[in-house]
């Protein structure tokens, strides 16, 4: 029980892949122009991490060092390709928005890092939990960053939710009374947004006194 909690806390907060380990940044920054985009990709990533961790963990005893990386990426890539093909065929509407981003999941370093550091060393159940925690942590950041950029960048929230869950959700869209600042949806805005999210996390970590990762502080404190 407590082992599960530790793993979950690690993935969600203490070693959050996006905020602390700084992995999987490409999709994180590229996709989060809106909350829904972020959420969608987050869910897809969650599935992939969990699946990869499980598979890699199952075969961890037969791995060989020299070819381990190609093997991991091969496994990840085939899972991602399958998901891509299957959603394309079965959930066409969903694929309309997801389609572009799914191949990007392959190169999400967070998944490879999980395979390398957790799944290839731990039993299946732990790997699975760790994978889910990592996926959820990643997904959470995607959602928060997407929300920030959507609100600041185009003055809406939850736009496009209908494509994900059905037409009824179109009504959930919130329009704020301003047009938004384009810089938030453009590449610089992604960097700024993530900086703000990381700073928020640091602030919370400092407040709650939870041991965050030790950080290099400024070298010269005095003026």
């Amino acid at each position, binding site marked *: 029980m407590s082992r599960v909690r530790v793993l979950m806390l690690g993935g969600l907060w203490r070693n959050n892949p996006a905020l602390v380990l700084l992995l999987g940044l490409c999709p994180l920054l590229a996709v989060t122009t809106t909350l829904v985009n972020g959420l969608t990709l987050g869910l897809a990533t969650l599935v992939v991490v969990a699946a990869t961790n499980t598979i890699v963990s199952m075969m961890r005893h037969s791995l060989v060092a020299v070819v381990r990386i190609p093997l991991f990426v091969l496994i990840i890539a085939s899972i991602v390709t399958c998901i891509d093909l299957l959603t394309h065929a079965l959930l066409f509407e969903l694929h309309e928005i997801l389609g572009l981003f799914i191949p990007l999941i392959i190169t999400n370093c967070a998944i490879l890092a999980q395979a390398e550091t957790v799944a290839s060393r731990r039993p299946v159940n732990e790997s699975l939990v760790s994978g889910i925690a990592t996926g959820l942590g990643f997904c959470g950041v995607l959602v928060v960053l997407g929300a920030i950029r959507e609100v600041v960048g185009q003055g809406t929230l939850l736009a496009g939710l209908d494509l994900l869950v059905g037409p009824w959700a179109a009504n959930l869209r919130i329009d704020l009374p301003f047009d938004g600042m384009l810089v938030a949806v453009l590449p*610089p805005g992604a960097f700024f947004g993530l900086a703000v999210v990381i700073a928020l996390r640091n602030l919370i970590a400092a407040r709650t006194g939870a041991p965050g990762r030790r950080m290099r502080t400024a070298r010269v404190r005095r003026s």
Partner: protein
Amino acid sequence: MQFDVAPGPHTAPIASVPLTMRRVLYALAPAAFAHVWFFGSGFAINFVVATATALAAEAAVLRLRRRPTRVPLNDCSAIVTAALLSFAIPPLAPWWIPAFGAASAIVVAKHLYGGLGRNLFNPAMVGYVVLLISFPAELTQWIPPRMGDLDYQHLGFLAHLSYSLTGALPADITIDALTRATPLDLVKEGLRSAQTYSEIRAGSLFGGIAGRGWEWINSFIALGGLYLLYTGTIRWQIPIMLLVGLLFPATLLWLVDADRFATPGFHLFSGATLLGAFFIATDPVSAAESDRGRLIFGAGIGFLTYCIRTWGGYPDGMAFSVLLMNSAVPLIDRYTRPRIYGRN
């Protein structure tokens, strides 16, 4: 008898930060008056709004960080930032444009790094680029200069103020009637749509060398620049190399094909060239630190500005070039350290 035993040297310092910053402001004054003369009171309104926001933002950040506020607020550096930002934005702009620009300059570019002296990028240019990217429509609303024979529609001070605060224009005037493309825009579009340079130059917005009004403002800026050089506030390396970096390719290509490339004189007196050379690129904090480094830094800005003007997507490239070279400063510094006396 007992005496004070302060450490040496005992000679009183011969420079100070507030004095330096004030000198920059003095040097900008003639150009500012020229700006108001040619483009109306918009500049003054923008400057006041930007300054107020900059100071307020600085005070707010310092308070939030529980730092002393008096010394940083008195050094006038935020006012310099606000002034340079005001030169970059069109006179006809809603109040929140200078306010937002100044706030991003001060908060993001300056105080996230800890304030005066620590920032890596030129704050005014960060503020301007953020504005340019976020609000391109507002940032392209330039108005033609006041010159006797242009069909210029005047906005008085009150009308300017009311536009700035409420967005309302006098009943009989539309925004489209007020705004014009700037000379740099015209040259860029003209050349792109296969007009020759001399055809473009025939337009009513052009004067002897470059855009009417603009040439004057730029001349006054150069005057201020000379004052800065004379007082030792800036050194020659950056401005001169910036102009060389800009004018050398400009002259070369103009000699190759005078129809498809603007004259060096046009480049010299248009847009932000001289402001950039004397006031922006010379920002001590974000420039290279050694003399040799400054040669490279200046030349880089000039050259990139020319490239962006000629082949890029924006009519002027000073702000981008300054930020690009700002990012190169640490590497420039690293590889241009002066050779220490007596070392090989």
